[in-house]
């Protein structure tokens, strides 16, 4: 980890060779009251945390093995430090895939993706980490490695403890091993890109509503603002990315439907086969130079409110000297904005955006921002009404609060 301004740093660094060593490290830290920041690929350094330096940075870099891959069961068990790309490569030979499309698959580890609950546009059809993780091994602060879930795809024995760790930002334990449900690789795919020149974007919502009322089964319905459209597709205006993955006939049929329903004024471009993979790879690696303040915002809303979120970003960008790249999935309710500019402008932008989101019953959190920025406006927004339950869980699982102190909601 190299970025000074992002925080989440520590005085010492360890990279245990085994899960047991992870647990032992935690046990000792717990005894001596040392604070620990777990880290995978380091892609979430700017995500969460408003405190100072920790005592120990605990890396899962040396826990990157594939433990067991059972193609017949469509499950795979890997150590937490394995990157998403490692898993993708491991299961491809049996024509299977891990249905997660987070950012930076080559660097991001499965443990980190789960802890931060990162996801991409394809969650519309395939779901997110909570839908794919069927078992975890977690090293707890008392030095125990406890299992949750199992290796089978259906399991209701006891509480669904997996869920607690997904998105917990490493505040409850250090994930050491993960078992995932896989899917077969689609036999064919294509992506229809509709671009809507500015002024025509009002046609987007009726189009999406009409599409959702058919039997079409899109994998993505990702909506991008003009800056992102320009950066990724070199086209003008808003764009809608409609991906289909199915057997060939079904893909062609769905593609044809879009072709027959292109809204007036919109332009259709179709990506096929490897072009689709190439595009999504570029999408997942999108980043902006941080020669100025760069902040990433994640927003959650009802599905179709995503369109408003992306448009909110455009509206709030006006009068401010900012670059804002925004997208959101009309089928899954998550929108993201990548904002770059002078710190004060970014700050007021985020505050205004957060206000709009929260008034609508949603949220806007910072998934990447400099430490100073995080300290000023907060990562997580308003505390939920049931905060005492979150606090209670933290107290039970990490009573000394040695894990990722103040990284999470409400300063947990």
């Amino acid at each position, binding site marked *: 980890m190299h970025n000074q301004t992002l925080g989440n740093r520590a005085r010492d660094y360890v990279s245990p060779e085994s899960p047991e060593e992870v647990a032992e490290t935690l046990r000792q830290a717990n005894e001596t009251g040392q604070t620990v920041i777990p880290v995978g690929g380091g892609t979430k350094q700017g995500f969460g945390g408003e405190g100072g330096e920790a005592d120990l940075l605990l890396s899962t870099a040396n826990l990157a093995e594939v433990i067991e891959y059972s193609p017949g069961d469509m499950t795979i068990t890997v150590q937490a430090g394995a990157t998403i790309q490692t898993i993708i490569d491991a299961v491809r030979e049996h024509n299977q895939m891990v249905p997660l499309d987070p950012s930076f698959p080559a660097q991001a580890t499965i443990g980190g993706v789960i802890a931060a609950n990162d996801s991409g546009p394809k969650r519309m059809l395939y*779901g997110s980490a909570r*839908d794919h993780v069927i078992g975890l091994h977690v090293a707890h602060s008392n030095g125990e490695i406890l299992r949750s879930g199992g290796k089978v795809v259906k399991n209701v024995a006891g509480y669904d403890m997996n869920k607690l760790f997904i998105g917990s930002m490493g505040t409850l334990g250090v994930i050491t091993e993960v078992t995932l449900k896989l899917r077969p690789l689609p036999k064919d795919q294509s992506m229809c890109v509709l671009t809507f020149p500015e002024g025509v974007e009002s046609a987007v919502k009726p189009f999406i509503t009409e599409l959702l009322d058919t039997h079409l089964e899109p994998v993505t319905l990702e909506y991008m603002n003009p800056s992102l459209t320009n950066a990724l597709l070199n086209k003008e205006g808003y764009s809608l990315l409609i991906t289909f993955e199915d057997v060939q006939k079904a893909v062609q049929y769905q593609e044809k439907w879009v072709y027959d329903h292109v809204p007036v004024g919109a332009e259709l471009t179709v990506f096929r086969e490897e072009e689709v993979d190439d595009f999504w790879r570029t999408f997942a690696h999108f980043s902006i130079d941080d020669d100025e303040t760069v902040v990433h915002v994640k927003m*959650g809303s009802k*599905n179709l409110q995503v369109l408003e979120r992306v448009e909110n970003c455009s509206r709030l960008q006006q009068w401010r000297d900012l670059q804002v790249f925004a997208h959101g999935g009309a089928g899954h309710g998550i929108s993201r904005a990548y904002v770059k500019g002078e710190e004060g402008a970014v700050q007021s932008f985020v505050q205004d955006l957060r206000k709009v989101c929260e008034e609508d019953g949603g949220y806007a959190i910072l998934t990447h921002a400099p430490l100073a920025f995080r300290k000023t406006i907060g990562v997580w927004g308003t505390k939920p009404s049931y905060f005492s339950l979150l606090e209670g869980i933290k107290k039970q699982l990490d009573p000394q609060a040695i894990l990722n102190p103040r990284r999470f909601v409400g300063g947990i």
Partner: protein
Amino acid sequence: MTEKAEMVEEMIRQLGDDAVLHRKEDLLTYECDGLTVYRGMPLAVVFPSSTEEVSGVVKWLHEHEIPFIPRGAGTGLSGGATPFGGEVIISLVRMKRLLDVDYDNREAVVQPGYINLTLTNSITHKGFYYAPDPSSQACCTIGGNVAENAGGAHCLKYGVTTNHVLGLEVVLHNGEIVEIGGVPDAPGYDLMGLVTGSEGTLGIVTSITVRILKNPEAEETAMAYFDSVEDASYAVSGIIAAGIVPAAIEMMDEIAIQGVERATNPVGHPEGSKAVLIMEVDGIATGIEEQIEEMVSVCERHNVVDIKVAKNDRERGRWWANRKTAFGAMGAISPAYLVQDGVIPRSRLSEVLAHIADISAESGLRIANVFHAGDGNLHPLILFDARNEGETDLALDVGSRTLEACTAVGGSITGEHGVGIEKKEDMRLVFSDEEIERQITVRSVFNPHNLLNLDKQFPKPARCGEVKQAVGSGEAHQVAEQR
């Protein structure tokens, strides 16, 4: 006035006369749920009609330290809603309204007593449905589904209840009302995921927002008969390996086939069939045929005896009715059954089924197998007659042994029925004492006095700390000391 009389009076004051049952004769029908081998008498049964009424009842019971059990339709198969004796049952069946449907955002909001299938029936005219489809869907409540994280035949492709819950309103142990979820990835620990499947031990769910799905454009259902369970099992693996994502693959073995054929919904399975697979593919119409053809050819490679595709919706409906009423149909060939719910990696199907056959032969009890073959979720139905001395104990023992057979290959003791009373001790087959204890500490955050569905779901951990007497409702109950 006795404590019970005082409680009954208070409940009647809060809810009205017809919303409280307290006579022995009436309570007796609440001594068990869908699992009849364990029974206990509740102190009373109350029927709140709103979230506020649930909250009021819970607050009072909490203050008076009387344990209580939320209950839906009582179709659970692990005794989750069965009292140990002396609890107040909070029945949610009168909270059965559909509160809202938002087709654009694909969400519906229901009260907990709303019936699973009624939701699908209410939105089908717009071409939508609710995916989780436990076999009891015609009568089980969505609140109960959330408590048990219910599955069903079509979970293979569409996931179980937890994958379809988007938001919950929950009454906590002290009567406080909180709303969780509502938008995806709400900041904070995933309480929604934790509460789903917590068998009523973490709170009482009073409103549920669920995902609704658009009906697939087309579906095709095939039924394939085999001369051996092994062939059928290999066919299942073959279909999965071919990269098909079927909506469902269900299997019934010979005894199960005999049962359903003698019950209310026979479909004419050929006599002597050793195994039948019901396979369904759905999706975009133009892509369905090649998938069915591929499934047929996989079955042919595995010595299928006969295979047919449903001619129309009516035939498909009859096939599913035949399969979905299979548990109850056992009543036609046995006065009682115990159903187990083990899960195994599906690649180990034939091995585990052989093991179960051995257990059956050794014990002398017939075991019918009806199960979700696609996800390796077995339902061995242990047939017995409780009127024969000692046979209930034997059946329970056989049940546990089938679960051991599942956990021996890395499986689980329950895929969708829950732990309840029945499988408390079997939890030790999958979790260490520490792992169980950790779950109990999580429970203590929501349920500090263990009043909510007292002592369900977890065995007492062997090294659990001291046990202290708590002052309760006149009856002392044990409360695990908080750490």
